[in-house]
């Protein structure tokens, strides 16, 4: 099953974090972690998210610009 999605090479953590934390659909769930660009604090690869503005109740549209 694991080889169904054959990655072209070993994917680094950076690639995963760059996508999972920063991209993808943002929608008004009951709670949404606010990880806006500016909230990303990078400490070496120890990307940290941090500026703990975390939970935020999003209102309005599904795809805020």
């Amino acid at each position, binding site marked *: *099953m694991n080889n*169904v*999605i054959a*990655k*072209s*090479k070993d*994917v680094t*953590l*950076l*690639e*995963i*974090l*760059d*996508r*999972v*934390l*920063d*991209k*993808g*659909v*943002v*929608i*008004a*769930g*009951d*709670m*949404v*972690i606010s*990880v806006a*660009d500016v909230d990303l604090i*990078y*400490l*070496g*690869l*120890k*990307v*940290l*998210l*941090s500026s*703990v503005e*975390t*939970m935020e109740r999003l209102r309005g*549209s*599904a*795809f*805020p*610009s």
Partner: protein
Amino acid sequence: MAENGQLVYLCCVADSEPTIKQVEDSEHNLYSICHNGLYAVVSEVEQQEFGEEGLKKNMADFEWVKTKASMHEKIIEQVMANADVIPFKFGTLFNTDESLKAMLEQYGQEFKAILRKLAHKQEWGLKIYCNPEKLKANLGNSDSEILKIEDEIKSSSVGKSYFLKKKKDELIEKTLTEKINECGQESFELLKELSFEARINKLLPQEVTEREDDMVLNSAFLVDKGEVGDFQSMVDTLKMHYEGKGFFIDCTGPWPPYNFCGLSREKVQNE
């Protein structure tokens, strides 16, 4: 079904019923919620861990973020092996299955439109890095203007050669920038030709990439599955052309279409 003290964590929405195996070393119960032909893949998480208080603490813990983000990715990859998916951003949470269903009801048409667009396509990522010293070393003996100034310097007085050296340095900087732009632009344009959509993301600094060289292009492409072979051949061609001249081309995929599943949020580069 999430019980008291638990939250519903949304990973992705799929267009067909996913065959969900519990992801290895996931301690959370993974299941899907169907509504109007859409399947939300969710996991049951502890309020304590993902609730407001817990999350604030956990988001500052690199190991925790690393584990959970990797899990998020792994779950989506598993689903997308057999379905088209819309990946959600890390940490989209609902109190109950019902409130998630209400969200699916509200955005169902938009999700379906996105899924139609994404059908039979894959996201690929391309990052290009440049080692300026290596690129500079390569320039020296190929750029005729630079060679000309070097000759002039040799036959000039001390005073004049000082200014000529300054001019040479400026010329080198300018040429470096041109070469970098050329590599980035050419690579992006050629791959865009083979893609359904393409976008350029912000460059990540060295502290993040932990590489010695500089990121000069961070881009993503939505490629039709039938075109992936051509896309990869083009990447190989670009590597052959640019690697060894101070550039490093890093192509990864297929990814869940993180970069191509929004509407107004995205600045789509494709015309």
